[in-house]
């Protein structure tokens, strides 16, 4: 018999070189995937707000675990080479990245889009995930 699907909200704190943009809004750990929700503001430095995309080979790394947890889906952001072009500097986007499921327990993870990132890549280090399993999502 298949295990019933369970999804939990995870508390988290992001350290390291996380830029303010995109901002991690929510992390959901499920038996089927790990989901990270982001909020992104079109930067003022670009005339029409620029664009966003995510590399297909983006993955999560759990500290103390050698496995790479691959990106399996993305919502609200195109997989490169496609791009979402903003129309203005006031635009914004909420997007979600779905990775292979990491173990449902407290841990520290890194999200890696590029091994040698530029400032345009969405690499986020040292996301501490706490109190996993305390809050279950019902209707996901």
């Amino acid at each position: 018999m298949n295990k019933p699907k369970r999804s939990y909200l995870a508390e988290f704190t992001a350290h390291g070189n996380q830029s303010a943009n995109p901002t991690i809004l929510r992390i959901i750990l499920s038996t089927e995937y790990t989901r990270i929700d982001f909020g992104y503001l079109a930067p003022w430095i670009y005339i029409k707000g620029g664009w966003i995309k995510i590399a297909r080979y983006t993955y999560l790394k759990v500290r103390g675990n050698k496995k790479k947890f691959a990106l399996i889906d993305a919502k609200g952001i195109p997989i490169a080479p496609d791009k979402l072009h903003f129309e203005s500097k006031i635009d914004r986007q909420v997007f979600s990245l779905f990775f292979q499921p990491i173990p449902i327990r407290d841990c520290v993870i890194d999200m890696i889009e590029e091994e040698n990132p530029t400032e345009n890549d969405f690499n986020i280090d040292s996301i501490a995930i706490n109190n996993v399993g305390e809050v279950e999502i019902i209707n996901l």
Partner: protein
Amino acid sequence: MGLISNRFERYRVIDELLSKSIKEYPNMDKIIAACQLKLKVKPAKETIQKDLARMKEEFRAPIYFNRFHDGYEYTVSGYSIDSSSLSLFDYQAIDEALQLLRSLGGTRVSEKFNHALDKLTSTKIESSPDRGVRPVLQTMNPPSPKGFENFDLFYNACKNMIPVSILHFSFSKRTHSHFLVHPFLVKEFDNHWYVIGYSESNRSVRTFGLDSISEPYFIKKRYIYTHDEIINQYLNDMYGVIPLPEAQLQEIEISVKEEGTLYFQSYKLHNTQEIYKHGSGKSTIRFNLIPTVELARYFNFHSRQIVVKKPASLVKYMKNIQNE
């Protein structure tokens, strides 16, 4: 005249023919001729067939086609559709009420409500693309705002007291955030929809526009109740949905010019509104309300007619928004 009225008028003609004390057994041609004579419109044979079927269904009319006399009759002596438990007048009233609900519905309420209305109207109201009902009542029916697709979810969350995890964007601060909200009210104001509830992050009651919420999910967590007194404030004591910081229920006084006075006389802003007219036509108007962002905006928008006198905190807030 609309199709619905026409239908009921045809019912009357048919009922008159079938309920005569000396039975005439009118056939289809006689019914059509009678309708044409009395209503000045010749109905199709199919229309009368539908009418007869509906009369049987809606009024439980004992209509029977008597083959011997080659015509229709009521098999119950003395029957008339006016003698059924719901009179024709009742049915017309129900149909008109349905039309009104349909008019008020549209994009302004939940999908569930609209589906229910669709079911009712499909059984109660005759419609035809070629001969559509010309409405005599029109309400504002603006397009659905962004985020309205979550209306049902928040309605259920309030009704069943389920906390919700939401992603929120603040237009004023231009920031994205995640909130755990224990909602108690979905409220429409000025064609904008809001959900109001206790926010765990803020440790207070907060108002969120549906248009600024994305990806809401129910969460399994103990629901944090908001005191009835606070809920009632949001229900009764506010013009709008976002109270000013630290605002309490209090007397608000404005001074209004002549034209504005006439307007406030016609359109009460709130049930607590009291107008004290001066001989010149100007007035002092008082409300008992919790000052809100929306009230301040309203006064500011009509600042050529309105000067806010009390409370001092609202006067100060008004000055700030006028200077922005």
